[in-house]
């Protein structure tokens, strides 16, 4: 019984901090462990036996699943952190380096095509391509050069990605890319592929939005990024 009561705290912490990135996990665990120890000591001082004191402290912890959902609104999950480190790595890379090479190529091709050809469709396509390049590559790179050690860098990059995905989505919708009878007759038609593309865009926007919302208020100083 005693062992069961003692084992409750690690279980509680595991549920409450599930999927959170390591630094958040460590901070939360340290504080809750201290709080729990203080709580057990206080209940023992009040005259409770050790088992009852553990039980009372356990009751003070509350529901771990509710705590987990509250913590997830504040801290980045491992998935969020992975996504952010990927776009930060991209932002830190200089122009035409290996990681963001395709985006740099898209931007340059769009710019050159815009200058060389006068066709309207090509101009629209170039505009769209350049928008993607500016939002996903150019803006993060500029933010990295200017604000890499402040919270503004992550917030700006997150916002840039989100705004770009939404802008591309809005532009494609405006261009009537979707037709209403999609998926009725030709499942693997061009429209079906477009639908899949939209689903990816919506999913991306939702993910960017969620991470950006967490970063919006964050005030942490950053000093873990390499110099420009």
């Amino acid at each position, binding site marked *: 019984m005693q062992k069961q009561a003692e084992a409750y705290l690690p279980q509680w912490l595991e549920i409450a901090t599930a999927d959170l990135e390591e630094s958040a996990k460590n901070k939360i665990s340290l504080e809750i462990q201290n709080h729990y120890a203080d709580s057990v000591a206080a209940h023992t001082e009040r005259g409770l036996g050790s088992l009852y004191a553990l039980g009372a402290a356990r009751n003070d*912890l*509350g529901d771990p699943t509710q*705590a987990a959902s*509250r913590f997830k609104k*504040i801290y980045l999950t491992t998935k969020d952190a992975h996504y952010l480190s990927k776009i930060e790595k991209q932002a830190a890379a200089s122009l035409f380096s290996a990681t963001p090479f395709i985006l740099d190529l898209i931007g340059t091709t769009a710019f050159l095509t815009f200058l060389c050809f006068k066709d309207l469709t090509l101009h629209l396509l170039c505009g769209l391509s350049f928008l993607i390049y500016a939002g996903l590559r150019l803006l993060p790179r500029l933010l990295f050069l200017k604000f890499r050690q402040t919270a503004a860098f992550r917030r700006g990059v997150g916002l840039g990605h989100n705004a770009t995905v939404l802008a591309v989505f809005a532009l494609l919708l405006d261009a009537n890319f979707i037709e209403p009878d999609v998926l009725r007759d030709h499942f693997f038609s061009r429209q079906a592929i477009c639908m899949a593309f939209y689903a990816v865009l919506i999913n991306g926007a939702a993910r960017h939005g969620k991470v950006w919302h967490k970063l919006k*208020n964050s005030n942490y100083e950053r000093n873990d990024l390499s110099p420009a």
Partner: protein
Amino acid sequence: MKFKGGLAPLILQNLRRGPNHGYRIAQEIKEKSKGVLDFKEGTLYPALHGLEAKGLISSSMQEENGRPRCYYKLTESGKKALAKEKQEWLQFSSAINLLMQEA
């Protein structure tokens, strides 16, 4: 009237008197409210960390009885937020009092 209730203003008010750690904040709120406001750890720490993320409080590690403890203190923007919350609460509670005291 827009009223933002909850634990955040109580934490800010507690930290007005100086740096404090989570356990003591919870105990002091419980004692001062004569046991009416008793928050679980699963509620207290997300609120504390949320306030820290917003820059209303800041934290630092200090050693206490051989254990590292996380102490929180009010920042300048936290002081402003507290003053605003207090004003809103006073307006709100006096309006409710007026209604409740009606014969």
